[in-house]
């Protein structure tokens, strides 16, 4: 199998922000801070929020299910440590503002989970049925670990109305700074491939791809070599895609790999495509093969002000503050703490905010970096230069939508297809007038959602 290391596959639009991946690219996945106090949020995914299964004062074991919900679109949460439930109460949540969380105080001798899972040599795909794999992905609390946190089981479960035929493992990692997926591809290659095979079997897909941006030639080579040495029984194709933000967005990736468009308002399974992040694939292998739930994940702690940036294997629920402290703290220049990358990540105000299953990075930005974007330059009027239209990967008219929202014309915003916006931030990034286009569109969507709620 010959794989080009430079990708021609891509999508229209997009931008090329400075990548800044060199900060942590060569940092191996290391154990994170020893957990003393963990706050496991009950809503870490898209879908119904879990109900706590434990009470204050209960003793919990590492890996024990502590929150769950009967809804189909949901995923249980598990305790990453052994200890005692200290409190069940509200905690800062990057997306929801504040949400219920179970705070656990770890025992002195709580086992520390190491990033040591290896696919056993006798791994045999035929041992697992499709139902078993789906069940295990649900029981393990798996959700998309690339950002949105869509429950993996819902993606995988075969649906007679929507037969699936293409599986794409997403190793693009197009956000600047973040390198956790890159390290996972280099270090956990066999887990990813096992996860891919399990997902392919569970979903009934006939074809599988691993898509990697061409700024990670080493990852492309390592994955290709691993596939070749395993004989590649599933005919997995490694696709090098162009390095361009937001190449790792599901809709953009499907466009690049399969030349298909996901209809507006639809999700990939509706056109028979399943997209899984590489971290999710690795977690799937662990959940199915050794029945270990998703309680830890790799988090890139990065940014110029961080003293010891790197990729750490962190118990989910560790507070951002603990994580930063573990990395040696930050220098004076730090001005913004972002969960995720600088393009789509969410700036947090509370360092007690717990990490979640979808926290792929903690990015610390300096005053200079954000100053250029937000403070030094005031917003000037839109000169209709059209840059936002050029870069919009969804082919929208961002300035029109943003200004409609600004002037409280939500119907106009919707006529210009506001709901099709995926909030990638390209328009705000290029805007010479420094208008927070993405911010306006997000606000507009929230207003529309509220309006609909009121009418219902």
């Amino acid at each position, binding site marked *: 199998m010959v794989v080009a290391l430079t990708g021609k596959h891509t999508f229209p639009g997009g931008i090329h*922000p400075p990548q800044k991946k060199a900060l942590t690219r060569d940092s191996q996945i290391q154990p994170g801070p020893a957990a003393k106090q963990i706050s496991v949020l009950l809503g870490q995914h898209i879908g119904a929020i879990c109900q706590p299964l434990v009470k204050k004062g209960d003793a919990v074991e590492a890996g024990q299910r502590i929150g769950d919900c009967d809804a189909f679109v949901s995923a249980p949460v598990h305790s990453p440590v052994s200890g005692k439930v200290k409190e069940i109460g509200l905690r800062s949540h990057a997306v929801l503002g504040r949400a219920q969380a179970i705070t656990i105080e770890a025992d002195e001798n709580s086992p520390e989970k190491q990033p040591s899972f290896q696919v056993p040599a006798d791994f045999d795909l035929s041992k697992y049925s499709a139902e078993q794999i789906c069940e295990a992905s649900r029981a393990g609390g798996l959700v998309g670990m690339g950002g949105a946190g869509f429950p993996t089981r819902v993606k995988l479960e075969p649906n007679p109305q929507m037969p699936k035929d293409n599986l794409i493992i997403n190793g693009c990692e197009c956000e600047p700074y973040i390198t956790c997926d890159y390290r996972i591809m280099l270090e956990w290659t066999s887990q990813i491939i096992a996860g891919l095979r399990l997902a392919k079997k569970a979903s009934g897909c006939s074809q599988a791809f691993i898509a990697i941006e061409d700024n990670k030639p080493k990852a492309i080579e390592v994955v290709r070599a691993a596939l070749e040495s395993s004989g590649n029984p599933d005919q997995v194709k490694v696709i090098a895609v162009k390095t361009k933000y937001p190449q790792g967005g599901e*809709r953009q990736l499907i*466009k690049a790999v399969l030349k298909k*468009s996901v*209809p*507006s*308002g*639809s999700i990939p399974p509706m056109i028979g495509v399943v997209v899984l992040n590489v971290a999710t694939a690795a977690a799937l292998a662990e959940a199915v093969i050794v029945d270990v739930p998703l309680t830890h994940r790799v988090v890139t702690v990065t940014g110029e002000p961080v003293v010891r940036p790197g990729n750490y294997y962190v118990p989910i629920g560790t507070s951002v503050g603990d994580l*930063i*402290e573990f990395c040696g*703290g*930050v220098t004076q220049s*730090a*001005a*913004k*703490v*972002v969960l995720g990358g*600088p*393009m*789509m*990540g969410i*700036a947090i*105000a509370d360092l007690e905010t717990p990490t979640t299953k979808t926290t792929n990075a903690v*990015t610390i*930005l300096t005053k200079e*970096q*954000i100053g*250029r*974007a*937000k403070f030094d*330059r005031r917003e*000037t*009027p*839109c*000169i*209709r*230069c*059209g840059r936002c239209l*050029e870069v919009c*990967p*969804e*082919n929208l*008219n961002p*300035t*029109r939508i943003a200004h409609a929202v600004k002037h409280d014309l939500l119907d106009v915003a919707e006529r210009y*297809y506001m*709901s*099709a916006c995926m*909030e990638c*931030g390209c328009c*705000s*990034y*290029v*805007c*010479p*007038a420094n208008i*927070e286009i*993405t*911010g306006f569109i*997000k606000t507009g969507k929230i207003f529309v959602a509220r309006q609909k709620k009121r009418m219902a």
Partner: protein
Amino acid sequence: MLKNITVSSAPHVSKPLSTRGVMLDVIIGLAPAMLAAGYYFRIHAIVLIATCVVSCAGTEWLCNLIRKKSNSLDDLSAVVTGIILAFSLPPALPVWAAIIGSVFCIAIGKMVFGGLGANIFNPAMVGRTFLTASFGMLMTTWMVPATIDAEVRTIAADNTVDARTQATPLAYSKQALKARTGAEAVNEQLGAAFTGEIGGCLGETSALALIAGVVYLLIRRTINFHIPLAVLLSAFAFGSVTYLIDSESSISPLTHLCSGGLLMCAFFIATDPVTAPLTRRGMWVFGIGVGAITMLIRIVGEYPEGVMYSVLLMNAVTPLIDRFYKRIPAGGKASG
């Protein structure tokens, strides 16, 4: 360790680009034509450009003061308007007329609409139209470039006005069209029209300098090629048809492109983003419209030159074009 952290909506980084930078690029793009104007029209060029820039900027400052708005001069858009207005004026225009034009173009063309980004019509063209309507004689008195010996006249204008003036090739072609002969003399001027050694407005005479400027803007991606190409293609097509029908009295399409304000319009006026459509298809329609109307005025109308009216007319329909050519999302129209 972490104090006073900032919270705001994503994205948290942005491209180091500003409106001021965009305008600065346009000024750099206009620089070759400025140099050419200085070379051919000497002191007249310097005086005219300086007058227009200063009075445009002054008017904007005054308007902001009256409207109690913060000063917006630092975005440099008034400077760009001033230069473009100066470029579209005859070199010998008296300073007082240039000041009147500048005040009108900023106050009425731009600030009454709400300033930068809100104006419907290209401010420089608004100013020029006002001057043409008010001081018709001054606006059609053309100077001979300083590099040409005043006694040697390549185009024989009905030389009654002044020894140092001449008709523009387009004005002459109008006469040829009426007399139904003699377009060749104009076509022979193609070379001069390309370098700029010819009568005409300050900035429009040298095709070479304008092309050099636009190449810079295209490389910097400050403008994209759709509108200029659409304007030139449609003007060329229109010119070719009339030339093929009647090559005795019509000037060649190439001469059309290099004469008058067509290049200047295609590169720097029609591409003004504020008053042009946003979508690609809209840009094509807009450009084709500008080129066709210009040629229609030049060939059929009474005026020898039609750029400003065609731009203003197409500016007026820009909102309609934008509404007509709405972008369809990548995932189709289906709402979810």
